[in-house]
């Protein structure tokens, strides 16, 4: 057996040009699928990180009440049910944040800019100071009322500098117009699409602007220890909540969600405090809770990535089929070229299986070497791509980590694709190998080509 393998490896080196061409074709196919998988994997990872940073958690509990006038107001009035539901999943929770949020307009001089603001309890959220990426200014005055942290793109657009005062116009939770004065103390590196970048201020101060009491909040954001568990944990949380309080149907960003649900999601996550009238028969008592997850938000992106992966896999298979036809034809040629050699080997006592083993080993070796080269090339190209800085202000920035593409290569995925290539290579040489093995030694020795 070892002898057969040695012969097979020698055969590869005998026909260098052909072996290199076949190996390159395999390497190219493997390179394409590995790069696409690495790209989509990286995209998924960075988008998830960017969105969880943007919305401040992996699971979001928001609430709404019905006002005496029948309007749905975005606020949590009684959090007992939510606290109990969180207690039940506490073994999975890394941290819990209580926030208020609104989307309004910033005014500086004659310039205006729409901006989402999150109210943070800086005393309770100590990790906020270490996690936030400050590009200018400092957090020294963060506890002063009216201190504001803005994405640098927003500050640049408004032309506002650190220490300057700006106005912020927002709606209260009941829909009344209000204006607050803020002082810019720091800017953050814009990490995602500008319209989705968040500004931060103290929760107590924001609450006075949006008509809530100092200690109130509009959403409970939960960071999990393991983000992979997000849907299972959210399902548990939702059923716990549903047993103690009214709940909205689970909201997702897919096309099947009703406009009302989408509106609720906008309201709860972007702080767009749009007031909607609730029909009498649909009204509820107390706080009605909604549960949304990072994956619900990402469902359009996940669908897009699945489509990209499916198309890439189809292209990979088509490429492989073309390569396999090439391999099959090459080995037919090999068989013809080596007929005399095969006849000699058979005459010297090599069994049919031995001839087959030589062919299979050759094909397998080329497949393994090709995929290995393809993988190394993919790593190289991926490495070069990830060095390019695409900046932070473009639409792409939602998918970038500090301006760079992240390619996440999955070893199990690469091994799976390698196995597919090996199996297809063996299938491609099966017929030539069988024909070679079935050659009559005497006839093969007489053959002249």
């Amino acid at each position, binding site marked *: 057996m070892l002898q057969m393998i040695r012969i097979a490896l020698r055969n590869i080196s005998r026909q260098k040009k052909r072996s290199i061409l076949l190996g390159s074709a395999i390497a190219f196919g493997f390179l394409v699928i590995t790069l696409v998988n690495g790209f989509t994997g990286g995209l998924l990872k960075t988008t998830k990180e960017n969105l969880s940073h943007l919305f401040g958690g992996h699971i979001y509990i928001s609430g709404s009440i019905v006002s005496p006038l029948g309007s749905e107001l975005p606020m949590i009035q009684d959090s007992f049910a939510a606290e109990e539901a969180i207690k039940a999943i506490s073994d999975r929770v890394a941290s819990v944040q209580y926030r208020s949020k609104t989307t309004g307009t910033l005014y500086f001089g004659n310039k205006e800019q729409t901006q989402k603001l999150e109210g943070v309890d800086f005393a309770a959220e100590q990790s906020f100071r270490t996690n936030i990426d400050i590009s200018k200014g400092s957090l020294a005055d963060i506890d002063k009322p009216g201190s504001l942290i803005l994405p640098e793109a927003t500050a640049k657009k408004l032309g506002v500098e650190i220490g300057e005062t700006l106005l912020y116009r927002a709606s209260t939770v009941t*829909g009344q117009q209000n204006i607050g004065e803020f002082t810019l103390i720091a800017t953050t590196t814009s990490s995602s699409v500008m319209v989705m970048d968040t500004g931060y201020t103290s929760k107590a101060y924001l609450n006075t602007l949006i008509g809530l009491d100092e200690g109130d909040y509009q959403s409970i954001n939960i960071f999990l220890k393991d983000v992979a568990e997000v849907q299972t944990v959210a399902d548990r949380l939702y059923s716990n909540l549903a047993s103690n309080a009214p709940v909205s149907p689970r909201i997702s960003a897919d096309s099947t969600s009703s406009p009302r649900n989408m509106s609720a999601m906008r309201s709860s996550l972007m702080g767009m405090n749009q007031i909607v009238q609730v029909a009498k028969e649909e009204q509820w008592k107390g706080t009605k809770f909604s549960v949304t997850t990072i994956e619900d938000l990402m469902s359009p992106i996940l669908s897009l990535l699945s489509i990209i992966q499916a198309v890439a896999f189809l292209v990979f298979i088509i490429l492989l089929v073309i390569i396999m036809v090439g391999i099959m034809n090459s080995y037919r040629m090999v068989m013809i070229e080596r007929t005399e050699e095969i006849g000699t080997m058979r005459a010297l006592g090599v069994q049919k299986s031995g001839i087959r083993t030589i062919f299979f080993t050759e094909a397998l070796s080329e497949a393994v070497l090709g995929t290995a080269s393809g993988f190394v090339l993919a790593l190289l190209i991926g490495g070069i791509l990830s060095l390019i800085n695409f900046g932070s202000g473009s639409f792409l920035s939602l998918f970038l980590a500090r301006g760079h593409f992240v390619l996440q290569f999955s070893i199990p995925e690469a091994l799976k694709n390698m196995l597919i290539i090996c199996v297809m290579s063996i299938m491609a040489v099966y017929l030539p190998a069988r024909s070679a093995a079935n050659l009559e030694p005497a006839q093969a020795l007489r053959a002249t080509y």
Partner: protein
Amino acid sequence: MRKRYALVSLVIVLLLVPMSGIFAQAASAVPDFKAMLKTIDERSNFTGRDFSAKIKMVSEDPEKGTTTRVAKTFRRDRDDSFLILFMEPADQLGQGYLKLGDNMWFYDPQSRKFTHSSLKENVQGTDAKNSDFRQSTYSVDYTVTSWTEGKLGAYDVWILELQGATNEVTYPYKKIYVTKKDQLLLKSEDYSLSKRLLRTSYFTSYAKIGTSYIANSVMYVDALVQGKRTSITFTDISLDNLPDSVFTKAYLERVNR
């Protein structure tokens, strides 16, 4: 002693009698402001009829320049419904706002989708709110907290300070200028909850249609961005009855086919 007290009392009574007349006269000169708000509403509403007009909105923005929009508006006050259908500019052709009872939608013919909107939102980024196109509801939404007399241009006016009757009105505080003679609204200042001026509306011209008055020229001036304003003029005003089908989602979809 008793005589002296009787004399003092007589003097006081004699002094108070003419003064009470003055007080009574002064009191009768102050109108019932609650009734005044009701009059303003009644004057500009069309309870028994439908209302339609062509509107031209010219928005000036120091950053974005001047934009002109042309739309048709249809109002049915008895159902608290209205429709605004945009005809210009070309990229907004067919877009519309529809209010039916408690619900309000924005229609985009490009995506052929209705999205929820509200009376509190601005119309297409202008300084006008959706609520500016519905029936007037001053008497329901506000109470008068103080008043003074004054002059606005050549007109003698009542200057009324209003406060929202509930915490769900868009502008919690308003100051309105109402003509003494006809009780027409000439100017309105809209304030935030923190009592900062947000917008001033000037009702520069009125058209009388039957017993109703419609402000056919209004200017909304943004108080936060200098030079940002929107002028709206109403033409082709009609009080003819409109078919019920106008106040439907299907109508917005149909006119875009």
